[in-house]
């Protein structure tokens, strides 16, 4: 092992597959008149997401941040009138390394003007079934999935009920701090691995996990985030929103994120106030989704670990 660290960790055949996969993705969007855009990967603003950390660089003596996603840049372009567009390239997240994570990874993110989350979910299903040759696409609400797997309503169950559900299926080294932590544990440790074959689309996430999605009442009158995720073979692949276009609400969420980060002793960096300005100027109603291309390639190659599809993961980068 140690004498061949110059070598790629991925078989060359998987790297050739990467090349055709990237070409296929570009063809898919070209046929649908969605334009490829480049946005800054080195930015003076960082993500505010409570659970995602930016990598900090030094640029001419001042802090700059490696983009954790192309979202802010693409949304500024949408507000400027660009129309349907996508980004296919690198994104960076600090501290994320493991069997399905590398701090530097390839992300596909695209926006559809005038669409909502349900319309975009259909397109995500089409892209995935075409690329992976999988015909089985199912969709469930977040609530239906929790009821089916754990017999608990994720929106209405109390913190105590959720803690008891976690205790039934998992052994923890810590006491869960809140409802969302319980839901994250149940989703990632219990539901995700048991989703089964095919493409699963999950929509209507808890309002407390809205991130940059709009929040609306569902058919039972419960406020839910118009956010969805795509999973294939028990692996999380994509996360999409019916995008928030309300500037004051966007500003409130940035500020709430900063509060959370301060309270949890996480680094606090300048947030993207130019996104708030773009929303003020008027970003069109749209839906957007981000998809992990390395994981998509893992599925296409039948790989079980991310280093089987990345030439030089962080240990060799």
């Amino acid at each position: 092992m140690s004498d061949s660290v110059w070598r790629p960790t991925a078989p060359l055949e998987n790297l050739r597959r990467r090349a055709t996969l990237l070409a296929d993705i570009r063809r898919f969007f070209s046929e649908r008149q969605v334009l490829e855009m480049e946005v800054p990967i080195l930015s003076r603003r960082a993500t505010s997401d409570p659970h995602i950390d930016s990598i900090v660089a030094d640029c001419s003596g001042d802090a700059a941040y490696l983009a954790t996603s192309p979202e802010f840049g693409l949304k500024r372009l949408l507000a400027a009138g660009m129309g349907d567009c996508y980004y296919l390239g690198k994104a960076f997240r600090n501290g994320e390394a493991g069997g399905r994570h590398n701090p530097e990874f390839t992300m596909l993110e695209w926006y559809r003007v005038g669409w909502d989350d349900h319309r975009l979910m259909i397109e995500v299903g089409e892209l995935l079934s075409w690329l992976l040759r999988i015909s089985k696409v199912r969709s469930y609400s977040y609530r239906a999935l929790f009821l089916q797997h754990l017999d608990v309503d994720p929106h209405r169950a109390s913190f105590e009920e959720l803690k008891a559900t976690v205790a039934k299926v998992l052994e923890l080294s810590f006491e869960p701090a809140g409802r969302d932590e319980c839901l994250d544990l149940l989703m990632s440790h219990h539901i995700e691995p048991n989703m089964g074959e095919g493409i699963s689309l999950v929509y209507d996430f808890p309002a407390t996990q809205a991130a940059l999605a709009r929040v609306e009442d569902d058919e039972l009158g419960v406020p839910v985030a118009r956010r969805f995720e795509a999973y294939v073979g028990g692996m999380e692949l994509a996360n999409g929103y019916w995008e928030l276009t309300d500037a004051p609400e966007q500003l409130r969420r940035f500020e709430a994120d900063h509060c959370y980060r301060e309270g949890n002793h996480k680094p606090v960096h300048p947030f993207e106030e130019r996104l708030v300005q773009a929303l003020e100027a008027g970003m069109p109603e749209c839906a957007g989704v981000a998809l992990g291309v390395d994981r998509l390639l893992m599925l296409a190659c039948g790989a079980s670990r991310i280093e089987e599809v990345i030439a030089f993961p962080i240990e060799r980068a």
Partner: protein
Amino acid sequence: MASYSTNEFKGGLKVMLDGDPCSIVENEFVKPGKGQAFNRVKLRNLKTGRVWERTFRSGESLESADVMDRDMEYLYNDGEFFHFMEPETFEQHQADEKAVGDAAKWLKEQDVCVVTLYNGAPLAVTPPNHVILEITDTDPGLRGDTAQGGNKPATLSTGAVVKVPLFLEIGETIKVDTRTGEYLGRAKED
């Protein structure tokens, strides 16, 4: 004592969990894109041999356990303790029945075993993968049956009972895999 954070957990690392020394078997980083990061860890409790699965928040840490694996020569059993010696320092250690466990039935004097020390005292004993032992009891051999299948139980000098081919006799020495208890062949006479 040093401590290790979840991002340093890797197979073989010895840590303390709930007051017991454990060896990490597997560490999986689990993070929903928009959710909190966790580490799902499998650990073997070195006292009981049981494997636990435990989820940590990423960034949590565990104290390291003072556990070391040493090659030692097995000397003798005094009826209560099994005695081992480090070949370089001649330092001797005594292990009780609990530490030796199932390994006892494979221990032959002068064989080199792996003795796991916890705070300097034997916690577990792993016999060599292959041992050569004498058959002390078995049914009489059947001549001319070397090619046919079929086997019979044989008791070995250390007390272990293994299945051997029908043609083997009392007094013969055989090679056995201690991990599976499987007969591997007659020991070469030299």
